[in-house]
């Protein structure tokens, strides 16, 4: 019944939009499928041998009204998601009215205030995250340089909206739009402030047979920030605080939450510098206090660590410790050695050094806790050797506290080496190869990875890779893929196996099974 009502609302939205003149229709299809040939654990998958996550987005745009809807089909979902992820329906439907200086959205929507410290509604399909809000949002630009947002709604929790009511407001003012002096000197200065309120009804959470927790029904969070840019320099300062919010994540603590961030950057032709520091404490903020796992987060704290794309560099990825808190630092220097110099050679060379360090906190603000959570020092060099060959090299030294991040496993200290070469074989033929090696005395010891990717422009791409654990299990995780692109269509057929693992957070661990089988991905934009 609910689905029918939602479908009707969506249809009405679409029809309303169609009534307008000059309607632009756009959308996309994404379908990822797995035909499992053998479960690595020899267990029958709950979804059977065929699994698929499929999304169909449709959007209609006109001068005054936009509308959209998304159908999702995960009745037989890919492995590694919560049980509740399974299902199908129309979880997204929205209509947006636009006037000169204002727009209003009714239905589902995504939003972020500032850096997301107190509100970030977003979608990350690979992780099964979609914490969109169902409700209303008003955005007004009453004058130049001022943006005001007000919203209220309930968060998506897979196929229901069962969290508390989330409401909030955000104001962003660009002072340089008002102050001539700033504009004259090329300085941009903005101030921002946000507030978010969560209302959640009382519930019984007993600590023993005759005492239950006195739970706050309202939790407030606020955020202030300023961003200054002048020439190559940039500074962002942001602070957020949250009132008492006892939850499963923080072991039903009544402490307030805080997060403060300072980020400075310098960017001039050929040179870039980034320095960041952040301290957070008890900032897990969900619309359902007893929720565990990934759903129903209202906020998001970015990890101050490099988001690696190379397979072995990303083998031990850091995840922000929202509830426990952390001190996080990151520094990065990039320098471009010019062509025809001693170090730059004939084609020039780019060097980037990145260092990030995350550590436990203490109650005293500026004191470190005893444990290192994560450390990553990496040096990347990018250089064209000849007109047809380009080489990227990376060395990375990593410390990963698996106990803190995943629940168990101790400190893993690894050294990672990556060589990535791109060969232009012909005008429309490219070959990219990767060789990677990770060495560590802990966990599953050493890993090796090799990849070859042949691009036959404009349509074809053939990829083969093997991730090999030769330090412990001696297992190969091989994959082969054939990709075909034509116009807005992309289809990819593959075969391979993935490794099993545990996804641990908030005191519990969920098993993500290994798989082996054929994969088929289809993407289409229209």
């Amino acid at each position: 019944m609910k689905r029918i009502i939602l479908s009707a609302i969506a249809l009405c939205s679409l029809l309303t939009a169609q009534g307008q003149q000059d309607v632009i229709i756009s959308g996309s299809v994404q379908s990822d499928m797995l035909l499992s040939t053998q479960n690595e654990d020899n267990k029958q998958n709950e979804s059977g041998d065929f699994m698929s996550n499929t999304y169909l987005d449709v959007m209609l745009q006109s001068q005054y009204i936009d509308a959209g809807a998304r159908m999702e089909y995960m009745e037989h979902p890919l492995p590694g998601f919560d049980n509740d992820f399974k299902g199908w329906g129309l979880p997204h439907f929205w209509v947006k009215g636009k006037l000169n200086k204002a727009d209003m959205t009714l239905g589902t929507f995504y939003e972020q205030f500032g850096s997301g410290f107190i509100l970030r509604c977003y979608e990350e399909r690979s992780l099964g995250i979609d914490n969109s809000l169902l409700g209303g949002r008003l955005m007004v630009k009453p004058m130049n340089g001022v943006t005001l947002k007000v919203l209220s709604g309930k968060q998506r929790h897979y196929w229901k909206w069962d969290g508390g009511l989330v409401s909030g407001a955000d104001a962003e003012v660009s002072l340089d739009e008002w102050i001539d002096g700033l504009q004259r000197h090329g300085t941009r200065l903005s101030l921002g402030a946000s507030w978010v309120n969560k209302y959640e009804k009382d519930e019984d959470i007993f600590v023993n047979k005759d005492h239950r927790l006195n739970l706050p029904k309202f939790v407030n969070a606020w955020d202030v920030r300023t961003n200054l840019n002048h020439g190559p320099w940039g500074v962002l300062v942001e602070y957020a605080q949250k009132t008492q919010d006892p939850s499963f994540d923080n072991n039903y603590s009544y402490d307030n939450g805080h997060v403060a961030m300072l980020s400075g950057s310098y960017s001039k032709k050929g040179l870039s510098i980034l320095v960041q520091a952040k301290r957070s404490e008890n900032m897990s903020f969900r619309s359902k206090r007893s929720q565990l796992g990934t759903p129903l987060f209202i906020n998001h704290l970015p990890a101050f660590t490099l988001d690696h794309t190379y397979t072995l560099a990303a083998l031990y990825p850091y995840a922000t410790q929202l509830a426990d808190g952390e001190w996080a630092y990151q520094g990065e220097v990039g320098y471009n050695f010019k062509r025809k110099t001693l170090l730059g050679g004939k084609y020039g060379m780019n060097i980037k050094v990145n260092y990030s360090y995350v550590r436990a906190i203490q109650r005293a603000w500026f004191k470190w806790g005893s444990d290192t959570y994560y450390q990553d020092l990496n040096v990347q060099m990018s250089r064209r050797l000849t007109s047809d060959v380009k080489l990227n090299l990376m060395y990375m030294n990593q410390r990963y506290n698996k106990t803190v991040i995943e629940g168990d496993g101790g400190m893993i200290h690894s050294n990672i080496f990556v060589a990535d070469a791109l060969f232009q074989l012909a005008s429309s033929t490219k070959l990219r190869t990767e060789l990677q090696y990770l060495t560590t005395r802990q966990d599953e010891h050493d890993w090796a990875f090799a990849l070859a990717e042949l691009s036959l422009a404009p349509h074809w791409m053939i990829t083969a890779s093997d991730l090999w654990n030769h330090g412990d299990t001696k297992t190969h995780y091989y994959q082969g893929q054939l990709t075909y692109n034509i116009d807005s269509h992309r289809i990819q057929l593959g075969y391979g196996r993935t490794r099993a693992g545990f996804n641990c957070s908030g005191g519990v661990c969920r098993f993500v099974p290994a798989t082996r089988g054929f994969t088929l991905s289809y993407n289409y934009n229209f």
Partner: protein
Amino acid sequence: MEIKILYKVKQTAKRLLPFGLLTVLPILSACDHIDENDRLIYVEPVVQNDSTLTDSTKTITSTLRTVLLEDFTGQMCVNCPKGTEVIKQLQDDYAERLVAVGIHGGPLGFKGNATTIGLATDLGDKYYDSWQLEYQPVGLIDRHGAVNYTDWVTEVRKEMAKTSSISMELEATLNDNQITIITKATSLEGTYDGQLQLWVLEDSITATQKRHDPIDNDNVTISDKNYLHNHVLRCAVNGSWGESIHLNTNDPIVKTYPLTVDAAWEASHLSIVAFLYNNSGVEQAIKTKVKE
């Protein structure tokens, strides 16, 4: 000049209005601050509404419910001892009215090797998979769905408030390595259709357990070789899902089962658990020590 300044002040005030509104908004919403001394609310303990105890002149239609807590645990599960701590607290609060069973299995279970005792069983894996559980520790309380360990106190209390229309008796006697189990089930009101399940549990098994050290410090894990495991599920007496049973009002059914003690078990540490369940959950449970 004055007019110009006044105009500028007005413009600035207008521009800063959004911030003013933003300051007011939190005031409009209620703000709950709960002082340290007000964080717990006293609630009357569960009233034990047992007609067998309160009124002997009327027909007996219900009795106290004994709650079954199935704890899905594993020796490789660092957080599982946190669940065990909750069980200890519940046993202190409710004594024999709570039957806790440690079901070792699932991905974090350990079945043992030549040097280390493993407590996980195929039966434990079967239950873990059948209930479609996703993480550990997790519990079933009277089989009403998966419950996170931090909610066990709340959910057990809710079950304790219910009565049961079934009364059960259970005896287990050891003789020459053979246990004779006698169970009796009586419906006090109406008919009951369900399954009768009997399990063997063992207490005081010293075996390895991964855990935090101390248990509430998530940043340190150890492999504790001297961890004491209690109420460990060893086997099912009458099949993985028990056997069908039909009860009529005040028409007790008595069943007897022989069971040979496995060489790996310590007979003096064994208990038997019997319970009745159907699609509505567990209706009644009982536990008894094996008497020698």
